[in-house]
């Protein structure tokens, strides 16, 4: 009904409005005005997404937009969303205003360029999550790299050059393989349209290689062990907003890829490789958690915790059970909110201490109670405290893991489940370790007058994740 009254191509509007806004931004000169204009544009973006609320709860693709594009190659401008992509689109466009607010004072130079990058990234994210044509998808996928690279390389920390190049090389290498898979699918399946490809029944041999090519591309993005090393470097060097987008949206593109491409297009190969993927996920959970425990840099700690959390997501996907899949979807969304929130908080405290070392940010409980409140809340969610959103996804995945028994020596053992449990414990350990030091550590770092508690702007952007955390 709603759709009929305001009939405009919603997805196209969502994709191109930020781009238009980015172009308009060139007209502004004053930094403050740039910030305000971008913030306004982000609110317009959310308003534009309003019709998406009328989404019907069916597995069909909705809000379809299909236009011929390059007829001779069979390329189409084909956009539509289902539940999965809708969830990710909401996450992307809600992240935008939050990112703008948390960079308000954090970013001190080249402000206009920074905001243009942010807007272009939103364009690419929405594009990735709504494209149903393989080439269109690939284009958005690649477009995203450039603003993200720039964001780390220009507004990053001291080691930004190394981190940005590492990020670029890793993801580009993955993308190349993705391009090969796209080409192979076109040759064998004779179309770029994903819904059409889903109906085709490819030979196992073909699936085998296409799966491998796509999986490496997505595994780098997730990142799965052993392709994870770019992530801590990128997270640590990126500015707050970059880290937030990286955690909330970019990593999800990997798992989105698994769900959108690997499972439907190459089901036989996915099943064949599932044990390998499960093992890699378990390694990510345990190894990521163990490494996180040893970090002295808060951002690195959260980055490695991302590796572990995303391990839960890939584990849930490749367990091939309903609960696992539900859990993976929830964990995807929740990880975005939680880790995004944690990075924002790290940003606020960095603005005060100018250090990401735990030892330079001790004992904030008394001076920054509001900060500690938000940090405590979100970190509880981060290790899956019952009653927070983090718990449900993790618990579903653990249930699914226990449901999948492994036959060893004639006995069915719930081996996968038993191996996830130490992962859950490690999560509690590293999160509590840093939380307790931030709250109680002595001597308190917050002595001078610059250490003020959260201001109104910081309250506003922290409330959003905080509300979502309590479910």
């Amino acid at each position, binding site marked *: 009904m709603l759709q009929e009254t305001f009939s405009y191509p919603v997805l196209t509007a969502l994709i191109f409005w930020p781009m238009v806004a980015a172009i308009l931004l060139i007209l502004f000169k004053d930094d403050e005005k740039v910030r305000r204009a971008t913030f306004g544009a982000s609110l317009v973006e959310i308003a534009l997404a309003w019709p998406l609320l009328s989404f019907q709860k069916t597995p069909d693709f909705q809000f379809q937009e299909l236009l011929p594009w390059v007829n001779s190659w069979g390329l189409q401008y084909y956009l539509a969303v289902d539940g999965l992509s809708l969830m990710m689109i909401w996450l992307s466009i809600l992240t935008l205003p939050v990112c703008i607010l948390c960079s308000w004072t954090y970013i001190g130079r080249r402000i206009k360029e920074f905001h243009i990058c942010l807007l272009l990234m939103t364009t690419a994210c929405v594009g990735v999550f709504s494209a149903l044509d393989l080439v269109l998808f690939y284009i958005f996928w690649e477009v995203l790299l450039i603003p993200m690279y720039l964001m780390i390389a220009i507004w990053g920390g001291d080691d930004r050059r190394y981190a940005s190049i590492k990020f670029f090389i890793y993801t580009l290498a993955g993308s190349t393989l993705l391009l090969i898979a796209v080409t192979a699918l076109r040759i064998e399946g004779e179309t770029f349209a994903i819904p059409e490809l889903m109906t085709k029944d490819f030979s196992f041999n073909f699936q085998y290689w296409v799966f491998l090519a796509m999986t490496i591309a997505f595994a780098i993005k997730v990142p799965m062990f052993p392709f994870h090393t770019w992530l801590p470097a990128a997270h640590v060097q990126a500015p707050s907003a970059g880290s937030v987008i990286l955690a909330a949206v970019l990593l999800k593109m990997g798992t989105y890829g698994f769900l959108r491409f690997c499972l439907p297009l190459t089901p036989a190969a996915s099943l064949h490789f599932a044990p390998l993927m499960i093992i890699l996920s378990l390694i990510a959970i345990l190894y990521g958690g163990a490494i996180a425990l040893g970090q002295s840099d808060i951002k690195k700690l959260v980055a490695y915790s991302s590796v572990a959390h995303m391990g839960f997501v890939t584990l849930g996907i490749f367990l091939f059970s309903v609960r696992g899949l539900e859990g993976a979807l929830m964990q995807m969304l929740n990880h975005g909110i939680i880790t995004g929130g944690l990075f924002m908080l790290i940003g606020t405290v960095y603005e005060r201490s100018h250090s990401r070392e735990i030892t330079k940010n001790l004992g904030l409980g008394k001076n920054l109670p509001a900060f500690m409140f938000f940090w405590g809340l979100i970190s*509880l969610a981060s*290790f*899956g*405290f*019952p*009653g927070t959103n983090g718990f*449900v996804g993790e*618990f*579903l995945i*653990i*249930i699914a*893991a*226990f*449901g999948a*028994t492994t036959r060893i020596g004639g006995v*069915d053992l*719930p081996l996968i*489940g*038993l191996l*996830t*449990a*130490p992962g*859950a*414990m490690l*999560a*509690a*350990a590293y999160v*509590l370790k840093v939380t*307790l030091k931030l709250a*109680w550590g*002595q001597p308190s770092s917050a002595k001078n007058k610059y250490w003020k508690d959260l201001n109104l702007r910081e309250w506003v952007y922290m409330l959003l994740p905080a509300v979502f955390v309590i479910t």
Partner: protein
Amino acid sequence: MTGFINYPLLWPLVITFVAPFAIMLMGRNKNIREGISFVAATLAFLAVARFIPDVLNGIINKQVLFNILPGLSLSLCLDGLGIIFALIAPFLWCFATSYNIGYMRKLNEHAQTRYYFCFGIAIFGAVGVAMSANVFTLYFFYEIISIFTYPLVAHHEDEESFAGAKKYMIYLMGTSKLFLLPAMALTYILSGNLDFSLGEINRGMFLSHDGTFKTTLATAHPWLIQLTYGLYIAGLAKAALMPFHNWLPSAMVAPTPVSALLHAVAVVKAGVFSVSRIILSGFGAQIMHDFGLSLTTAYLAAFTIVVASFIALTKDDLKARLAYSTVSQLSYVIIGVALVGASTLSEGTTFTANLIAAQGGLLHIGHHAFGKITLFFGAGAIYVATHLRSIKKMNGLGRKMPWTFGAFGLASLTMIGIPPVAGFVSKWYLLNGAVNAGQILLMAALLASTILNAGYFAPIFIRAFFYKPDPDIDLDHYHEAPLTMVVPLVFTSLVSLTLGLYPQIFQKFIQAFLGLR
């Protein structure tokens, strides 16, 4: 608001949840702040007490708050087992508050508002654990207690307390994540949901009404039930069953009122209560019996009882001795509850639950609470008045602090189990239960521990009243602790005595719970 009025089961929780925040807001005004604790404790107690008639009539009130997943919800209930703990926690909170006022103000402790806030939230968690209708709800409140008691244990913010609190957190959070969470996941798979089987202690949550397993997985792999059980017992470290008992002595770095209410009542009782709940409403007497879980658990508990008592003998620090005594006494509850699945009364293939032992165990939840809180209150009163912690230096102190040491002596009798004090009744049932189960060795362990209890409690009392004071200690300096401390401790010791004379007070609830009306 009307919604809230219509759900009386929520009241105790809402009261105990709102009170800490009111305490925080009123942080500036000491008297109002502590007044809120009193009012909230009374109100919460009354809110629970209004369900007493229902419980005694065998009516179990249930309330689903949120459905998170199919078979996984946040839901409350109040039955004979839950109401005991739900009554004790706010009741003792009231006395602990009075005691707190004396202790904290006399010692001029810092961060008192934070202290009272966390104290209140811990009570909220304890009431929540008592009222949990499924494993998830139990887990939720159990974890709330863990998190919010950390600032209480680390209250002094010095190196010793941070080390103790760290150990506390590692033990409690580590075990609950490593064992309890998987146990919960396995339960969900094996039984299809997480709801306790309320109102019948034989069947448990894994069996359907005709005595077969609910799920095909459980039928195919019955040993998974044993694994789940093992994970629960290891995961509920608050019950301080060996080898996961070590956090309790470390937690003694906390101020004494914390040790008194939390490490004698709220936290550890949440542990043994959870174990009881899992055994009686989760696994059920039938499975405990069929899988041989009863005796395994009972022997582990017996081991804990004896070993902890021996360790207690070696401790000179009064609080450390009390801590090990707590470890030992908690296992009394577990031994009784575990023996529910071991009975020589069973004839042929039909199995009869050993309800005598279970009664003994559950009675001890209440009886131990009043005795142990008195002992800790006593230890705190002695510390406030004299700054003494070493038992050896307490010679002759009884003459200066007759009320404190008198109450302390009475509470010691509860621990030892001498009539007419409360401890005797539960011990009597436990011994009978052990005989019913045909386990002479367990009986011997219980008797041995009685002698050991006497061995480490009697000297304190005897030193205080009959020994000559040390030459380097001038008794004339010392006199009773403030009245706000002495009154609660004398009162709780008298409650112990009353419970010994009228054990029906708790027994009625337990009998309603066990179906013995």
